[in-house]
């Protein structure tokens, strides 16, 4: 007798109105226990948003190196492949943010819509939900406003809990706009250029394709605080070292980042 995956179980619960958001962050793990099978499952809706709040987001580690496709089908065009380590060569674990899930009625397979940290920026795709581990919940949103040269962190209720001036990419090497997420949290050593702490984001500098590490847009400290606020960087977001230290304690892996 077939056994439902945790992802199917989560999807089933979502369709009856007690989705992951309603259950809360423990839901993903709570659903890791097998549940009684429900052949035929349900009909509509077929696509379930994992969160209807900008302050609540989900991410997961990959479980297998599966192909990511443009649509929830094995026949859809491949847009990427799940990786276990980040592409910048720093040896950190890759994560993927998940925005929604869809159960294909014909096959019963549940697919998850994920964001891919790769070029071009903003790439998304579908992967079998079973290719991902349990979903982790993360609260908050980091907004980088390039016009005001300011970063603001909002909590799950939309209240600003931290804000600081930033340095962004110079006009010839702009910081890209879009929706991204925090990929790595690093203690920066080996020099003062990046300050004491750094975050890797899922964004890539548009023009620095041959940069070491691939041109990942980071959020980090600096040894030139006098240039903040301003546009002195190669695309990264620079903060004064005191500000990056504070942000280090507040910002979690998987937190979405909006650069506008």
């Amino acid at each position, binding site marked *: 007798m077939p056994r439902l995956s945790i992802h199917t179980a989560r999807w089933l619960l979502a369709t009856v109105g007690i989705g992951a958001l309603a259950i809360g962050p423990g839901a993903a793990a709570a659903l890791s226990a097998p549940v009684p099978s429900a052949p035929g499952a349900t009909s509509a809706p077929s696509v379930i948003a994992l969160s209807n709040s900008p302050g609540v987001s989900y991410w997961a*580690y990959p479980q297998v190196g599966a192909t990511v496709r443009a649509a929830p089908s094995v026949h859809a065009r491949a847009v990427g492949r799940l990786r276990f380590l980040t592409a910048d060569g720093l040896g*950190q674990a890759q994560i993927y943010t998940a925005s929604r899930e869809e159960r294909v009625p014909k096959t019963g397979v549940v697919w998850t819509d994920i964001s891919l940290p790769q070029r071009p920026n903003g790439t998304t795709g579908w992967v079998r939900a079973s290719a991902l581990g349990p979903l982790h919940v993360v609260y908050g949103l980091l907004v980088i406003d390039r016009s005001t040269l300011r970063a603001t962190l909002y909590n799950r209720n939309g209240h600003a809990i931290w804000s600081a001036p930033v340095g962004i990419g110079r006009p010839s090497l702009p910081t890209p706009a879009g929706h991204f997420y925090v990929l790595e949290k690093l203690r*920066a050593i080996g020099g003062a250029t990046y300050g004491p702490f750094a975050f890797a984001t899922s964004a890539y500098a548009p023009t620095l394709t041959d940069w070491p590490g691939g041109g990942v847009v980071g959020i980090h400290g600096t040894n030139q605080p006098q240039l903040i606020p301003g546009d002195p*960087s190669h695309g990264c977001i620079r903060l004064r070292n005191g500000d990056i230290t504070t942000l280090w304690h507040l910002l979690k892996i998987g937190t979405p980042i909006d650069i506008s």
Partner: protein
Amino acid sequence: MITDSPFPPATRATSRRGRWPRKHARRLIFPLVLLTFATFVAGAQAHTVTASTACSSATGNSVTFYWSNFANPAGTGNGGRNTPTWKIAYTPMGGATTTTTGNVSFPLNSDSLTVAIPARAGRVVASSAWTSSQTTDGNSSSYSNNLTIPNCAAQPTIVTTASPGIATGGTIEDQAVLTGANSPTGTITFHLYAQSDTTCSTVLSTGTTTVNGNGSYASPVVTENTAGNYQWTATYSGDANNAAAADSCGQPAEQVAVSVVVAPVSVLTTPVSVPVSSVSSATVTRPCLASPAQLTGVIGKVRNSLSAHLTGVGVKSVTFYLDGRKLVTVTKPSHGRFSITINATRLSYGAHRLVAKATLRNGSCARISRAGTFVRVRAAAVLPVFAG
């Protein structure tokens, strides 16, 4: 205004002397005379240091410290012969102690010094002293005390996450991550309530963990035998440098479900043939597992070691395989879990697959298998290679 009274108990007792029996008053007269004489000779004039309430602003504030009750030493006056000095020391959050000094001149019985304190400075340590340069009376006085400005305490945050839901008989726990504190000590107290207890008024279980720095702290493990929905709360006690912090009742991340043990249809029941001689009908079913088998602790990133656990009532033994290679067979569960700890330092960076194959007590049931992938990662202290 915060005042630390420097008056010794004996001095305060004099103000109540009138209410005391006469014999007690007589016994006090001689010591008081001696004390007054000694004070005059040594010049140990009592003075106080007080501080204005401060740090109400998140962006920093000024604290004004008041020196008062300086006595004018006998035989001294202006002219530079007495240059009492004072100093104030404060320790900003995460920073070094800073000392500010100044001089006052007599005649004087009060003065003040305003010091800008960074926001959330933490414990403020203030001390003062004055000395006389005149040799005839040898007066000097010192006063030292620690003044804690409450609103200057660091304002830590506590983020909590309950363990996954379980079947009855399993264990649950809570985890609290304390951040933003200044070298915190104290305790984190975890309370378990029923989810229906919307005001968190009836504690079902309590545990306390000692805090030693910012970081993650786990509650004691609770074995829950009653099905239902529960919720945790966690409260950081605070200390001299840090304000208390707590998560509120009803936090979504603090909910945990304890479900009734049910034999899932898919894997938990296997037909078992029973001899016709003992049972009139041909076949009955009994569960292979009394609770679902779960492999935990595997998924995610690993640096130096990994502890994985397989739970499931009805499991006899568990054999663990790493990347297809047999590691060990565990026959004795600990707290209901068949566990393995793997030294990951010799593993390559990247993905590894851990498989747990369980043999069940019901010998007629097939072995079950659970697997998970973890990623061995490098240390997070690196030289970034970002765009810069």
